[in-house]
């Protein structure tokens, strides 16, 4: 078949790829965005008078139907109106976030990202046909900082399935900041990624040593295929004479079978403490209680011992792997 014929016959229609989600937009969602009042409160507490005034003008502009180019430009200009630095949400604010949008943790947001997200969320047709094209245009012209804000806001949008292609693009990036904005501390991927995109996200997080435990919903979307990919990666690392990343063992759950137990045995026999802590947790996650109890008797490191006990007591969900985050131990 000639290339031209192949392209004509075998190429998916752009609409079915979801590339420009407006083709498949669902009109049936509520206009209400649950997190909107929290964004207002967060910004109210952090913007100075001039910044708040600018925000009000910008929001009115957007609500009145500003063109895509204008919205993109307001998103750029926001850098001149937000204080630099982390959002640094209080415990109460983090709780509110989690309550309003389970899986959202704003701990690593900047104030500027919150301001940019707030602008996007004010689009008058946010659940309608025009918005997806507008958002895509914002992505096309975005700088690094704008990209992180745009990817972070995806989980807050109605009819989130419209943005699945875009979110997978976010995971294809080479900028770690952008990858983590897409993958971590947001409910979006677990809810909307298909299996291919989901597996790529998880394995890439391990590969680049992004904090996999922050990928919301990981424990609910473990699978035999993911366990196989993780174990293959572990073999690759060992063949290359390199240590296995502790967070790789998060990917197994109960799905790794005998191959996983052998790999964890091997890991427990290593001298490196981080590897042993991770393997201890993974044994608990695999339900290999007999194996964990057997190791407990001969274990001399009190930390590893405590972790084995913890795992046996069931305290080994993904959040237990927070201890491996860079800089936390």
């Amino acid at each position, binding site marked *: 078949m000639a290339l031209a014929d192949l392209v004509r016959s075998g190429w998916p229609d752009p609409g079915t790829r979801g590339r420009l989600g407006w083709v498949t937009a669902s009109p049936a969602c509520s206009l209400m965005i649950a997190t909107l009042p929290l964004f207002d409160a967060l910004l109210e507490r952090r913007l100075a008078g001039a910044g708040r005034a600018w925000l009000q003008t910008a929001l009115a502009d957007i609500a009145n139907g500003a063109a895509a180019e204008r919205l993109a430009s307001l998103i750029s200009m926001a850098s001149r109106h937000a204080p630099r630095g982390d959002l640094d949400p209080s415990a109460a604010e983090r709780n509110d976030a989690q309550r309003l949008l389970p899986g959202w943790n704003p701990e690593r947001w900047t104030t500027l990202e919150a301001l940019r997200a707030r602008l996007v969320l004010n689009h008058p047709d946010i659940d309608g046909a025009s918005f997806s094209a507008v958002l895509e245009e914002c992505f096309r012209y975005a*700088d*690094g*900082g704008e990209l992180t804000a745009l990817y972070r806001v995806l989980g807050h949008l109605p009819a989130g399935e419209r943005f699945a292609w875009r979110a997978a693009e976010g995971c294809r990036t*080479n*900028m770690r900041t952008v990858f983590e904005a897409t993958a971590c501390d947001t409910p979006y991927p677990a809810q909307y990624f298909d299996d291919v995109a989901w597996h790529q996200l998880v394995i890439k997080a391990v590969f*680049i040593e992004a904090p996999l435990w922050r990928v919301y919903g990981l424990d609910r979307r473990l699978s035999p295929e993911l366990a196989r990919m993780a174990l293959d990666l572990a073999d690759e690392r060992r063949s290359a004479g390199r240590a296995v990343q502790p967070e790789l063992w998060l990917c197994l759950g109960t799905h790794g079978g005998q191959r996983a137990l052998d790999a964890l045995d091997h890991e427990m026999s290593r001298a490196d403490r981080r590897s042993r802590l991770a393997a201890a947790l993974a044994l608990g996650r695999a339900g290999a209680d007999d194996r964990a109890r057997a190791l407990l008797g001969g274990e001399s490191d009190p930390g590893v011992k405590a972790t084995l006990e913890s795992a046996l007591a069931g305290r080994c969900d993904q959040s237990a792997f927070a201890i491996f985050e*860079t800089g936390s131990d």
Partner: protein
Amino acid sequence: MRFFDPHIHMSSRTTDDYRAMADAGIRAIIEPAFWLGQPRTQVGSFIDYFASLVGWERFRASQFGITHFCAIGLNSKEANNEGLAREVLEVLPRFAFKEGVVAIGEIGFDEITPAEERAYRAQIQLALENDMVIMVHSPHRDKKRGILRSIDIAKEMKVPMSKFIMDHNNEETIDDTLESGAWAAFSIYPHTKMGTDRMVDLVLKYGPERLIVDSSADWGVSDPLSVPRTARRMLERGVSAEAVELCTWKNALDAYAQSGQIDVAALERSPVIDQRALWEDNSVLRGQDPRVDELVPN
């Protein structure tokens, strides 16, 4: 010492260069938009290029403790493809006001054609309307006339010359540039433009006020370390440390910080490299131990 190279095309350089630059004390750079060595044929190529200047390249620089700023503009060579040039001018406002964009540039003359002049004037207008700094390239051929023409047009359009940087000067053009009130930048570039010892002669003769040293390193035979090398030569030949600092750090900072996009206090602090933000898949770090929290030796 610490250095600011206010004209270098890092997209064309390797990570070895970034590492060597950081080791040599270069803390911040400006990457002005220019051409790629061959002409682009469609506006999308410009859009992706501008996006990379404020995206991937900025990220790449940060891995080495170097702060990356950029200037956005349509260069003079490609201004001569007028249909395309018009499309590019239309997308400039999409990028010119982004965080870290410190100037409109590099713009100016190459062959000194009417098409180049139209693009130059349009971009000066954009800068004026938005109170921006302007970085001006000067031609290889007929340089002196190109510089005079650039300055005349800027004056006619009432550009505040304190926000006008005239680049690629030499012994023949320095008087006109300084007399206009503009900043005079010099690209230390092997075989063409300006050499190290000639630069030292100029600093000794004119003093450091409003003189800026840059590398203009790109995809050609060029040297990303020419700013620190020139500084060393200046010291060897008796230029005072204060004067060296003005030409290789402070003057350029003063000129471009007028954009409001440079946190000078942050640049003054010792940079800290965090290569943990790197990764291995197509990334800049491939297997070696990350240099985390190392101070850049100055």
